[in-house]
Every structure is written in C-alpha cells, then in structure tokens.
C-alpha cells in the first residue's frame, strides 16, 4: 500500500460507502491529488458499512432522501451490485394501513411503482409467512439489496484508474490543523498531509474527527440490533443471496431479510442504546469490528418472539440457529437528516456523515458536486450541516432527540408532529404572557412559537363554520380550528404575531452594499430606509433562500430570514463576502438581540397610531420601507411589509423590551378587537391565500424563479450569484409551473370530509399520472385552509400544458381522489389580487 503523501488537493477521511462514493465522484468531476485514508483495512475498514444489512426501500416521505436513494440505486445498478428482491411493508392495524396509503402518496409523488396489496399477495411471494395478523401491505417491486463493500471497491478503483487517487488504509488521523479559520493539514499516524480541503466521511467517528478541528458534527452512534438465523432449508434451496422479498413488519418495528441460507432479523423496537464516539472500541479491542458491538440479548428477546410468530416455519426450521448477533452501530442525528456540507466553523472542512447505504452513492455525488460547483443537482438543504444552531450541536440535545426518535424509525409520524423532549429552550420575551393567553407552542429550531391560542376559543362561536372544522382525527391532529378563527379576526380586525424566531444578521462595513448586491437577486442599491424582498440563488440559478433585507444606512443592511434556515443563510452570505481590500464587509448575527412582533390587519394603522406620534400614514410610511419610530416609551424599528397580505408592520425591539411591546400592542389593540395570532396563520393560512412561496416547500435548489413565477420585468444590471443562469432561464419556456388550486369537494367514500396536509400527488381528474418537463410528477408543496375564501388551498408545480386557469385535476389523498381546480397559474393571489389590503 502507498505511503501517506505529504500534500493533497483534498483528503477524504473514511473508506466506507460515503468516502468511497466521494472519491469516485470527485475524480469524475476533475479533482486530482485526492488522498483517501482510513484507520482500518480494506475493503472493510470496520465502520457501519461493513455490517449493514444493505437493503433499500426507495419510498420515503422526504423528497430529498428519496431522490438521493433513487440516484444511489441507479449507481449501484451501473456497478452491477444491485439485486432486486421486492419488498413489503406490512400492516397489522388500520392505523398502519392509513400510513401505507400515505406512503402510496409519496410513491406516486416521487414516481416509484408501488401497490397496496392484501395478505394473499404477501403469502404467495413469501410462503413461510403467517398472514393471520396481517391486514395489508405496501408492495414495492423495486426494493433490493446491494453489495456496498464491492461498490466501494469499484468506486475507489475508478478513481485510481483516472490517476486521481491515493488510498492509504491502516492510517489513523491524529489531528486536524486549522490556521486562521481554515483547514491546512491532516496529521496522521503515517505523517502530515498538507491540504486546504478535508472531508470527514467517518460515520460514527465523525464527531470525534471534526472536533480535532474545533467543528461539530452532531450525530451519535446508536445501536441497531440484528441477528442472522440459519441455515433455513426454504432459503437454502434457492440460489443466490436473495430470492424472497424483504419484509418490514412495521408494527413490530422489525424486518426480515433473506441473506443466502440465513434470515436476518433486524430490530428498531428496542430501547435507544447510544454510545459515545470516543468510546467505540479500537479495531484491536473489538471482538468482531468496532461497530459490531456485543449483542445485548435481553433487548432483543421481545422482537425474537414477534419474528418467530411471523415466520415460524422458516425461523423455527430444523437446524436453523442464531449464527450471528450484533449490536450494530449506525449514525443518528437530532432531526434524522444526514449532515453534509462545509462546516460553518472551519473553512475547507466538509462533512459527509450520517448517511445510510441507500443514500451513499447519491450523497457522494451531491457532495462532490457541491464541492466543485457550489451546489448539487439534487437539493440537499435539509441535510446542510450549517442548519444547526449551537444548542442543537450539544451532546445533550443529540442524545435526547435521537432517543426520542429511535422508536419512530418504523413509526407513524404525523407531518405536524412535535417533539416531547428538549423543549422550552429558546423563549421569546413575551413567553409568559403567551402562556397566559393559552398558547399552543410548536418548536422551531429550539424556539417555542405559539401555533394558536386557546384564549381565542371564543372566536369559534363568532365565526361558526367559517373556521372550516375538520372531522377526521388525522387531518386535525396538531391543528385547531382556532387557527382559522385567528385568521378571520386578523383579516377583519388585526392580529399580533410573535416573530421572535426570525434569524437576523447585519451586513456592515464599506463593502456592505456590494456584498448584498452580489448575493441577492433584487436591486439592493436602494436608499436607506427601503425594504427589499428577494430570492437568493445559487450559481445554477436554483433557490438558496428567499428573505427580506432592510437597508438601514449607507454601510448597514439587515437581513431577516426564517429561523429554520437562518444559519445556512448566514453562512451563504458569509461565504460570499468580498475577500478583503478596502470594500470589506462583515456579518454580525443579531438574532438574539431583537424580538420581532408583527401587527397586521385593517385596524393595524389605528392601533399603532394610538402608540406613536410618528407619521405612519401610507404617504408618510409607504409599503416596503422601514424606519425607527417611537412606540410608547420604546424605540422600535418598524418595517412595513407583510407575509399575510395585510396592512401592517414588523416591529423590531431589543429582546428585553419585547414583552413590553407585546403588552402595549394588546392594550392599544383592545378597542379594535385585535387578537394574538399564531404561526398557524402566519406560516400557512395567511400566506397561502396570498400565494406567497415558502423556502423548503415551494422553493429549493431545484426550483427556478421562472418556474415559481416570481420573475420581475427586468433583471438588475449588477452581477449577482446565479445571474447568468437566471437570465438563461427567463429566455426558455419553463418546464414546470407553480400553480395554486382549490379543492372542489372534500367528501371521501366514507362520507367524512378530508383535508390534505401536503405531499399528496396531483393527478388528472380521472387519476392519470402527470409529468412535467423535468420528468417529475406534481405533488402538493403546501396545503392549508383559506378561511377568507372558504376553500382548502393546494400549491403544486404542474406541467406547463396543464397550468391553465380553471383546469380541473384531482388530488390523491389516502388513496382517494378529490377534484381540484386551478385558480392561479402565477403568483397572483387568490385573495385580494390587487393587493389593495396591504396599502
């Protein structure tokens, strides 16, 4: 084997599925002098790849994860290491059947063949299964198994053939050298490698390696128990590794997967068993491999009985013994998503961690593209390492959230489901008042945000059926008709909204204008006191974000963005600051300095007028402007903007004055019947009536301004990131068009009215498949009540030839079709299309 080189263009640490995919794709994209090291031997250095069960079920509710999986399957097939077996996810309860119907929605939305079948279908393909307790199953013919070790070898060899790669196994990283915030070298047991780019692809060891550079990769090693039982005659008589479909017994949280003459039984039912990255045994200390920890039998025993009852003839066959049993380590993250991208702490230090076999090659390609071009074809923003706030990187947070999530691995997770633990961390200054108002708190990146207020319950009587009550438990879980009542009160009177969770950062310095101008699409060279709403694009012209920017002074801009994506936005702005010289600029995070309160509704001006002598008339304080005003005895930065389509302001005050401002607004609002309004209105009903797009729903790296129908008449002259791509997009016909639809009839076959929650496929009226110019199938990006219209509204990207006003299509929800009609084929709002209310 090679010696450790002294210099490298990039060092990839780790030779599991991720590291191997990465070196292959980097080499393919033209990188040379790649050095890949691993402390273990090849081809199985002892990480999680080596003991993975290696099967792939492609359907996930997340588009990002599904696309990474489909890309991985394509690559595995190209390498000829994929064997299709088919797979069942079986249901023992009606509740699970409903979840499988929801899975059908995802399958159709992501274009994966799947079918709901009865027990007899399972029995025919898996004759040794007991179907007495099975009421149905989700059948995916394209499920299969891969040889991930062989795939890794093939991918390394491809990079070696290009002369791009040096692989050095049996070498351990001893330190990462950081100089002035940038990685400069990797110290190893075989010598020092100078480099300015390092990728940590070390699976469960990643936190430990990143920490050497002062960076955090917040994942935890966690146990997944697996046993292998054999030889089983029914399996042994068939040739090859797998000839029976894989069975996921969803309600007992386990799977049965044939592996030659053996049946592997894996469990997600046991208690969460977490380990510390620093306490994983070394290769020498380990009995099998470092990530095949000693089996703790008692944790598995309940699962053993359930598995036996499901397949007694196979698992109880004469001679079939438990030949292998491990507590296999895998990586879990606090939000379940992988951890990819350049670390915010150290320039040039990248993470490619918390990735499963099913996503490995796809992640390798995406991260390699990201390192090469600044973005990837598959949008991976949910996995961006920059998403974490400091509290989310703490060991305590990672342990608590992964412990709570483990049992949900095969669970039924509602899209609105809230975490039970790790709550009450980031409290708005008016939190105590909100509790008195009966706030139902939802959590966003640690912030406790009122989603609605029980104190507004009286409004239900006032508005009656206009609140569009939902009778089905699933549709109304994590929801309240009070949201729609608050919405109506805001539209008729005024609403007061806590927006403290905004991420806010300032761009300051002589180069501030240029820095903002080159980062955002909209004209940033505006007079101080102006507010701009703007998309932010990547180099390929996909959305990196959408946000508002206030110009506060000639050398001072304030960027306000959603809390969820705020840290990634901040990194993006930081990464694109002018390097140095006279026109320098700096980013200052003021998220924790300011509390923001929204005041909106037809009475907003009257209410604010009671608290201020400043000129807040339309003539004196126009839309999209901002300035300091006096509100009572508080100094407030007021910004006239709205995400709910009403007259009003965002009011920014120092965090410690937020509670006072909250009180003042309520007192002043009382004569007009102003009410506190939760995020249920701000995030969904208010915006959806106005057709406002939201990043992460309608907008992401795979969408363009033109497709989202957000283009302005002109493109600004000054250069900005993505400008070239954007200009080109404007010259071409869009391949897909964002449309707004309303549901014509909610009545299900059972007679109950059903309300879609998002993610459902849009089909032709009679259930036919639609495909856009990208080859994608339309799905609902956002769904919500539009109480002012008395309609349920859906947004979706549709094929351009279907995007016509009045076009009648259908939405599939829980495997039933509901008629929908297109009401908008651009950004024209359904409510108040002339935006008269905002004036």
């Amino acid at each position, binding site marked *: 084997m090679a010696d450790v080189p002294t210099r490298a263009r990039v060092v990839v640490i780790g030779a599991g599925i991720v590291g191997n995919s990465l070196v292959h794709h980097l080499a393919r994209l033209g990188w040379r002098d790649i050095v890949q090291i691993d402390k273990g031997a090849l081809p199985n250095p002892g990480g999680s790849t080596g003991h993975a069960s290696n099967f792939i079920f492609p359907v996930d509710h997340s588009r990002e994860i599904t696309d990474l999986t489909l890309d991985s399957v394509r690559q595995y097939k190209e390498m000829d290491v994929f064997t299709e077996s088919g797979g069942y996810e079986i249901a023992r309860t009606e509740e699970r059947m409903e979840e499988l119907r929801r899975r059908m929605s995802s399958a159709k939305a992501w274009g994966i063949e799947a079918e709901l079948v009865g027990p007899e279908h399972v029995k025919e393909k898996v004759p040794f299964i007991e179907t007495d307790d099975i009421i149905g199953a989700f059948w995916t013919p394209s499920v299969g198994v891969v040889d991930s070790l062989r795939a890794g070898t093939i991918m390394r060899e491809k990079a070696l053939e290009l002369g791009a790669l040096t692989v050095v196994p049996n070498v351990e990283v001893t330190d990462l050298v950081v100089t002035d915030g940038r990685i400069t070298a990797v110290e190893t047991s075989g010598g020092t490698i100078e480099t300015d780019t390092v990728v940590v692809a070390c699976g469960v060891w990643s936190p430990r390696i990143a920490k050497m550079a002062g960076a955090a990769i917040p994942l935890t090693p966690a146990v997944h128990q697996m046993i292998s*039982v054999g030889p089983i005659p029914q399996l042994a008589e068939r040739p090859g590794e797998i000839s029976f479909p894989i069975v996921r017994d969803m309600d007992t949280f386990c799977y049965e997967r044939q592996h030659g003459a053996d049946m592997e039984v894996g469990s997600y039912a046991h208690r969460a068993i977490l380990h510390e990255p620093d*306490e994983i*045994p*070394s290769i*020498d*200390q*380990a*009995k099998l491999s470092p990530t095949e*920890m*000693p*089996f*703790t*039998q*008692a944790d598995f*025993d309940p699962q*053993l*009985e359930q*598995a*036996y009852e499901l397949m007694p003839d196979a*698992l*109880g066959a004469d001679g*079939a*013994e*438990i*030949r292998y049993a491990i507590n296999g380590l895998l990586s879990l993250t606090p939000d379940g998503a992988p951890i990819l991208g350049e670390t915010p702490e150290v320039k040039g230090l990248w993470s490619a961690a918390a990735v499963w076999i099913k996503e490995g090659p796809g992640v390798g390609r995406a991260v390699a593209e990201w390192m090469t071009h600044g973005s990837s074809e598959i949008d991976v923003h949910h996995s961006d390492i920059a998403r974490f706030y400091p509290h989310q990187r703490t060991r305590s947070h990672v342990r608590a959230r992964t412990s709570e999530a483990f049992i949900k691995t095969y669970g039924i997770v509602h899209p609105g489901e809230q975490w039970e633990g790790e709550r009450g961390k980031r409290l708005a200054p008016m939190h105590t008042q909100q509790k008195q108002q009966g706030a139902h708190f939802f959590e966003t990146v640690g912030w406790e945000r009122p989603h609605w207020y029980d104190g507004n319950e009286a409004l239900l009587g006032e508005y009656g059926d206009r609140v569009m009550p939902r009778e089905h438990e699933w549709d109304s879980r994590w929801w309240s008709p009070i949201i729609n009542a608050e919405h109506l009160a805001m539209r008729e009177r005024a609403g007061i909204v806590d927006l403290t969770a905004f991420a806010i950062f300032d761009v300051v310095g002589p180069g501030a204008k240029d820095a903002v101008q080159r980062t955002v699409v909209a004209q940033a060279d505006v007079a101080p006191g102006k507010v701009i709403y703007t998309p932010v694009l990547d180099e390929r012209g996909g959305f990196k974000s959408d946000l508002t920017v206030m110009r506060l002074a000639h050398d001072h801009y304030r960027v306000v963005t959603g809390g969820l994506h705020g840290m990634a936005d901040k990194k993006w702005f930081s990464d694109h600051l002018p390097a140095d010289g006279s026109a320098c600029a700096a980013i200052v995070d003021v998220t924790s300095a300011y509390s923001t309160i929204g005041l909106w509704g037809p009475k907003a001006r009257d209410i604010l007028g009671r608290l201020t002598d400043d000129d807040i008339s339309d003539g004196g304080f126009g839309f999209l402007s901002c300035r300091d005003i006096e509100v009572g005895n508080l100094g407030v930065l007021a910004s006239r903007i709205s995400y709910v389509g009403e007259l009003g302001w965002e009011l920014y005050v120092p965090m410690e004055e937020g509670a006072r401002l909250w009180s003042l607004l309520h007192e002043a609002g009382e004569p007009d019947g102003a009410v506190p309004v939760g995020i249920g209105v701000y995030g969904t009903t208010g915006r959806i009536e106005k057709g406002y797009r939201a990043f992460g729903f309608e907008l992401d790296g795979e969408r363009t301004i033109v497709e989202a129908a957000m283009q302005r008449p002109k493109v600004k002259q000054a250069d900005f990131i993505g400008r070239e791509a954007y200009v080109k997009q404007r010259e071409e016909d869009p391949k897909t068009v964002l449309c707004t639809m309303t549901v014509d009839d909610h009545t299900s076959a059972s007679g109950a009215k059903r309300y879609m929650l998002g993610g459902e496929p849009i089909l032709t009226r009679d259930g036919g498949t639609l495909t856009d110019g990208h080859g994608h199938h339309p799905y609902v990006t956002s769904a919500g009540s539009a109480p002012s219209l008395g309609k349920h509204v859906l947004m979706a990207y549709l094929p351009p030839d279907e995007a016509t006003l009045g076009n009648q299509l259908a939405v599939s929800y829980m495997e039933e079709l509901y008629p929908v009609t297109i009401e908008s084929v651009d950004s024209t709002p359904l409510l108040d299309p002339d935006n008269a209310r905002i004036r």
Partner: protein
Amino acid sequence: MVDVLVCVKRVPDSSGEVLLTADAQAVDARYVGSTLSDHDNCAVELATQLVETHGGTVSLVSVGAPESVEQLRSALSVGPTAATLVETDLRDFGPADIAHEIAEVVRAHAELGREHDLVLLGNDAADTGDFQVPVRLAHALGRPVVTGIKTVAIENGRALAHGDSPDGGRETFDLPLPAVVAVSEGGVSPRYPTIKGRMGAKKVEIEMRTPTREPHGSGRVRLTLPPPAPSTVQVLGEGPEAAPAVVDLFQSLGVLR
C-alpha cells in the same frame, strides 16, 4: 439416563484485545461484552450430546454477579433445562470459595433427590485463569477428577474421558460415576441457539442462592497482561493466483476440509 451439571462462568469475551480494569483486579468487558468461555461452551455442548444419547437432564450452575443470568439463559437456549445462580461479588472469591459453593449446590440438589452423576467444568476460567476449581471441587465432593478433557462418553455406568496427551497422543481415562471432568475446547463444536431454544430459555426459572459461608478470597495481588503477541502480516499473493495459497491456509486452519 444421566444427570449432568455444567459449571459456567460469566467472563469478558477475550477474542479482542484484553483490557484490565483500573485496579487490575479484573478483565474489563466494556468493549467486548460478557460471554462464556470456549471451554465452558464445549462443556455445555458435551453435556447436551450426552443427554441426547442417553437421556437425562443437563443443569447449569454459576457463581457470580446477578448479570450471570444472561450467560445462564444463553446456555439454557442450547439444551440444558435447569440453572442455579449463587449470587455474589466474585472479587471477594477465590477458587476454593467457588469450589466450595458449587459443592454445596451439588449436595443441596442431592438432598432434593437430584444426584448429578457427572459435573463438567471448563478447564480454566478465561479471565482469572486459576486452573483450580475442578480439582478443589472434586476434592470437596470426594469424587474422581480428570482435567484437559476433549470428549466424554458414558459406557456401562462409567465415564470414558478422552484428552490429548502432552506427547501428542491421545489419552483415555476410565472413571467411575459420579465424577468431575474439566473440559478443554476443541473436542466438540458448540451449537448456536435456535430461536425456539432462546424463547424456551427465557421461561426457565433460575434457582437463586446465596453463598453459604464468608469467602476466604484468592490472595491475588493483581492481574497482569502478557506481552502482546507479535502481529505479523503475511501477504499470500494478489489476484486469482493467490487462491491456492488461501485454500492451503484454510485447510491448515481446519475451516476447509
């Protein structure tokens, strides 16, 4: 019919690198987990085979921490049907103490009408390696004992115990029953549990006992690790040409016949 008692001990798995606890009084099982030694597993297998041939029962006994129940259940899942745990902290126990407590169990069972014709033990413990309990147990019970035994047969009410002699030959000992036999690994291949076996093992009620006297202790000062065995890597070749060498190696290791 034959009644066999197999004595087993919960020990750290020693197939990885062996670590000692900070006070050097015990082997650290943190990374490797706990298990039964190969000697013990072979003793269990031998007993199970004897009963499969002659009928009868296999019982287990262990002296040690409450967690030893895990190892008893593992062993129960491959054949034995009863188990006893003398619950104690082994740190205070020497080989004489362990032999005494096992003898007490044998006598107590005899009083209840359960005569153990044959008591099997692992030849020596994988962690402490005292090599004393079998002989001390036989002495306490007044029974004949042989050690280093690979296989045992029962013929005409006597035990025929086979072992390897130091000169490479084979030794056979003919013992009257009841007897004590210390088993070395290699004579039989321990079976893995079946799922049914494991499920059955969970249902066995384990007899719990406490020590009958204050322990004398082992007089042990501390454990020390032998110098690490030199690790040499020999490259057998590359590509298809290496195949014959690999086959030869597998044959010499006995994994290929």
